[in-house]
C-alpha cells in the first residue's frame, strides 16, 4: 500500500513536471509546477522527512509559486505563441540528450548502489534536524542568513527606479 | 620615551592622509591642519631636544622593532646629536614652507599640504633610519612627493626639471641600493647572519676592491643629492622651477640628506676606502665651491643664482667631511644647518618677491630697498650670512671647515677661502642689482606683512644664534664627530700595524 502511494505520487510528480514542458499558458505551467512540488512534498513525507515536507509546501508551493504568479500577472503574459517543443524542428537533439542522461543515471544507480540493509522507513524527527542545524552546521546557517540578506539587498537595489 | 621617534615619522604621514581624506576640498582647513601637524612635529622634536643629553655616548634614542625578519630587515631608528639637529631643522623648515606657501599656492592646497607632510615624513625617516633597507625606503619616499611638488606646482619648465631631478636622484639611489645589497651579502657570507642592521654592518671586513666599489655606490647616491660638481646639473633646474616651498625643502633639507648620508653611512661603513678616496672628494668639493661661485655670478634668475650658491656652499660641506678632523667635521655639520636656514630664508624672500612682481629676473628688479625696507634688510642679513659674515650662521661652519682643512692641505684651504671671496662678489652683486639703485619698474610693491615677517624673524633669530652662540649646537655634534674621527685613527693605526 505504502509503495503504491509512493509510486503513484512519483508518477504524478513526473507527469506534472513533464506537462510544464508542453503547455502554452504560463498560468497552467505554474499550476503544473505547484502540483509537482506538492507531490514532491508528499514524497518527502513518505521517505520519512516530515519537516522537509512541511517546508516544501510552505516555501515552494506557498512562497515561490506566489512570486511566479505575481510576475506572470504583472507582466500580463499571454499564452505563449512559441512553437511547442514537439512540433518544432529542434526537439529531437535535446530529447535525445536527455534520454541518454537519464539512462546514464539509471545505470549509475543500479550499478553502484548496494542493496538497502534496512527495509523499514526510519523517520528522522525535526528535532534531530534542528539539533544538526544548530549544532555542527551553525556556521552554515549564519552564512545562509547572510546570503538571504544579500539577496534581499540585491533585489531591493535592482528594483529601485534610480540606481546609482 | 623611545616611541617618539616613530611618532616623528608617522605623525606627518597620518596628517597627510587625514588632510587628503577629510579636507580634500577645504583649503582653509587643509592649511590649518597642515600647519598644526607640522607644528606638533616641531614640538615633538623640541621635546626630544630638551630631554636629550649632549654628553651621552652614542645614540640618545633608539627604536628597534622587527619588520621583515626573514630577510633581516628591521624597523630600526636611532637618534644621535647629528640626527637630532637635522630633525630639528626639518621640523622647523616644514612649517616655514607651509607658511610661505600660504597664499602663493593657488591650486589644490590640500594635496600640496599632504605632499609636503609626506616629504617631511620621508626626510625624518632618512635622518633617523639605521636599517639600510629602511633608509633606502625613506630615501625614495621623500623623492616621490618632491617630484610631484615640482611637477605640479612648478613654473614654466617644471616637467623638464622634475624629470631631470627624478632621473638623476633615482640613478644615484639605485647604485646605492646595489651597494647596500652587496654589503648585505658580503656580511652575510662572512658571519652567517644576514642583516641590514647598521651597527652590525659597521665592522664588516671587505675584500680589497669590493669596498671601494661599494663605497662609490653610496657616494654616487649622496653626491647626486648634495650635489657634487659633475652631477649638479639637476639642481639649478629643480630649484628654479620648483615652487617656493619646494625650493626651501630642496635646498634646506634634501641636499642635507646627501651630506648626512656621507657622514652616517659612507665614512663609517667604509673608513679605509673613504680615506683613500678623500683627496678626490675634497678636490670635487673645491671645484664645486669655485665653479658654483663663478656660475652664480652670471645668472639672471635669482633662484638660479641661489641654486648655484648652494652648490658652492655644499662644496664646503664635502670638503669639510672628507678633511676628516675635529674642526672640519664640526664645521661641515654646522654648515649643513646654517646653509639650511640661510638658503631657505633666501628662497623664501625670492618667493615673496615673485609673489609681488611675478618675476625672478634680476634685470627687472633694482632699487627695491626703497619700497620694501624690511624685505631688503632681511635679504641683506641672509646674504651676509651666506657670504660668511662672522657673527652669522655660515661663518662658524666655513671657518671651522677651512681651519680643519688647512691642517690637511693648505692648497685646498686656500682655494676654499677664495670661494668665500667669490661668494662675496656674486652675492653683493646680486644684492646691489636687486635692492640698490633706482626703482626699475613698479608693480605694487608692498613690504612684508606679519606672516612673512614672522617667518623671516624666526630664521633671523636662528641665524644669529648659530652665529653668535653655536656652542650648544656644537656640543651635540661632539659625539658623532668623535665617532667618525675614531674611524680615521683606527684606519691609520691599522695600516701602521700592517706595515710593521
Amino acid at each position, binding site marked *: 500500500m505504502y509503495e503504491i502511494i509512493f509510486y503513484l505520487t512519483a508518477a504524478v510528480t*513526473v507527469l506534472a513536471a513533464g506537462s510544464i514542458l508542453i503547455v502554452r499558458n504560463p498560468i497552467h505551467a505554474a499550476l503544473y509546477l505547484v502540483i509537482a512540488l506538492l507531490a514532491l512534498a508528499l514524497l518527502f513525507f513518505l521517505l520519512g522527512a516530515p519537516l522537509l515536507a512541511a517546508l516544501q509546501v510552505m516555501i515552494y508551493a506557498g512562497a515561490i509559486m506566489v512570486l511566479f504568479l505575481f510576475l506572470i500577472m504583472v507582466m500580463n503574459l499571454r499564452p505563449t505563441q512559441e512553437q511547442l517543443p514537439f512540433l518544432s524542428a529542434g526537439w529531437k537533439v535535446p530529447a535525445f540528450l536527455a534520454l541518454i542522461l537519464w539512462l546514464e543515471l539509471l545505470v549509475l544507480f543500479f550499478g553502484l548502489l548496494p542493496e538497502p540493509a534496512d527495509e523499514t522507513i526510519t523517520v528522522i524527527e525535526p528535532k534531530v534536524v534542528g539539533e544538526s542545524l544548530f549544532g555542527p552546521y551553525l556556521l552554515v546557517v549564519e552564512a545562509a542568513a547572510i546570503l538571504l540578506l544579500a539577496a534581499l539587498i540585491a533585489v531591493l537595489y535592482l528594483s529601485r527606479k534610480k540606481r546609482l | 620615551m623611545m616611541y617618539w621617534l616613530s611618532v616623528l615619522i608617522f605623525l606627518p604621514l597620518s596628517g597627510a592622509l587625514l588632510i587628503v581624506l577629510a579636507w580634500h576640498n577645504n583649503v582653509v582647513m587643509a592649511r590649518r591642519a597642515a600647519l598644526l601637524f607640522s607644528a606638533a612635529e616641531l614640538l615633538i622634536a623640541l621635546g626630544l631636544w630638551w630631554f636629550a643629553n649632549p654628553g651621552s655616548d652614542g645614540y640618545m634614542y633608539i627604536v628597534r622593532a622587527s619588520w621583515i625578519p626573514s630577510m633581516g630587515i628591521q624597523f630600526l631608528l636611532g637618534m644621535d646629536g647629528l640626527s637630532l639637529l637635522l630633525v630639528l631643522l626639518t621640523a622647523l623648515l616644514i612649517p616655514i614652507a607651509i607658511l610661505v606657501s600660504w597664499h602663493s599656492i593657488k591650486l589644490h592646497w590640500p594635496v600640496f599640504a599632504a605632499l609636503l607632510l609626506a616629504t617631511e615624513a620621508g626626510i625624518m625617516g632618512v635622518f633617523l633610519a639605521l636599517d639600510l633597507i629602511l633608509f633606502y625606503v625613506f630615501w625614495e619616499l621623500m623623492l616621490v612627493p618632491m617630484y610631484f611638488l615640482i611637477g605640479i606646482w612648478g613654473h614654466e619648465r617644471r616637467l623638464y626639471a622634475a624629470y631631470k631631478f627624478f632621473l638623476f636622484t633615482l640613478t644615484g639611489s639605485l647604485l646605492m641600493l646595489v651597494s647596500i645589497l652587496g654589503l648585505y651579502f658580503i656580511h652575510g657570507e662572512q658571519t652567517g647572519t644576514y642583516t641590514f642592521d647598521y651597527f652590525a654592518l659597521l665592522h664588516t671586513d671587505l675584500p680589497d676592491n669590493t669596498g671601494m666599489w661599494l663605497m662609490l655606490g653610496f657616494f654616487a647616491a649622496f653626491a647626486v643629492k648634495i650635489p657634487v660638481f659633475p652631477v649638479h646639473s639637476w639642481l639649478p633646474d629643480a630649484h628654479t622651477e620648483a615652487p617656493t616651498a619646494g625650493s626651501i625643502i630642496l635646498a634646506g633639507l634634501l641636499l642635507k640628506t646627501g651630506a648626512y648620508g656621507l657622514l652616517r653611512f659612507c665614512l663609517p661603513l667604509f673608513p679605509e676606502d673613504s680615506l683613500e678616496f678623500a683627496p678626490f672628494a675634497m678636490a670635487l668639493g673645491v671645484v664645486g665651491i669655485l665653479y658654483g661661485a663663478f656660475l652664480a655670478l652670471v645668472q639672471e634668475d635669482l633662484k638660479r643664482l641661489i641654486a648655484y650658491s648652494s652648490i658652492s656652499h655644499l662644496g664646503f660641506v664635502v670638503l669639510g667631511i672628507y678633511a676628516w678632523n675635529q674642526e672640519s667635521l664640526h664645521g661641515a655639520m654646522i654648515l649643513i644647518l646654517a646653509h639650511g636656514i640661510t638658503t631657505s630664508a633666501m628662497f623664501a624672500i625670492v618667493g615673496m618677491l615673485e609673489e609681488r612682481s611675478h618675476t625672478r629676473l634680476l634685470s627687472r628688479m633694482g632699487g627695491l630697498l626703497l619700497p620694501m625696507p624690511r624685505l631688503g634688510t632681511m635679504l641683506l642679513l641672509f646674504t651676509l650670512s651666506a657670504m660668511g659674515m662672522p657673527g652669522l650662521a655660515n661663518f662658524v661652519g666655513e671657518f671651522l671647515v677651512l681651519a680643519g682643512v688647512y691642517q690637511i692641505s693648505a692648497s685646498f684651504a686656500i682655494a676654499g677661502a677664495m670661494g668665500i671671496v667669490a661668494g662675496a662678489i656674486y652675492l653683493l652683486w646680486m644684492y646691489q642689482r636687486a635692492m640698490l639703485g633706482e626703482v626699475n619698474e613698479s608693480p605694487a610693491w608692498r613690504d612684508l606683512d606679519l606672516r612673512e615677517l614672522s617667518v623671516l624673524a624666526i630664521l633671523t633669530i636662528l641665524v644669529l644664534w648659530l652665529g653668535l652662540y653655536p656652542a650648544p649646537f656644537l656640543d651635540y655634534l661632539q659625539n658623532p664627530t668623535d665617532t667618525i674621527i675614531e674611524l680615521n685613527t683606527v684606519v691609520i693605526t691599522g695600516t701602521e700595524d700592517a706595515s710593521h
Partner: protein
Amino acid sequence: MIPLSHSLIIAALLFTLGLLIIMLRRELLFILMGLEVMFNGAALTAIAAGQYWTNADGQVLTIFLTVVTAAELAIALILVWLVFERLNTTRADNLKLLKDNIDRGPP
C-alpha cells in the same frame, strides 16, 4: 519498501525533465520553472540518501538548497522583470546582447 534506487530514478527523471524544459522552452519564466524542477530533483536525491543512511544531513542539505533556491529565484525574477521592462520581451532568443559579432572586431 522503496529502495533507494527508485527514489533516485524519480529524482533523475525530475532533473532530466527540468533540463529538457530549460533546453527547449524559449520563455524565461518557463526556463525558471525548469530550474525549479531541477532543484527539486536534486533535493529529492539528498533526502532519499539521507533517509537511506538515517542521517539528518540530507535534510539539512535540502534546507540549505531551499535557501539558495529562494535567493536565486528572488534575484532571477527581479532580473526577468527588469528585462521585460527594458526590452519588452521575455523571450530568451531575443536576449542576445552577449552574442559575439565578428564584424565589430575586438573592442
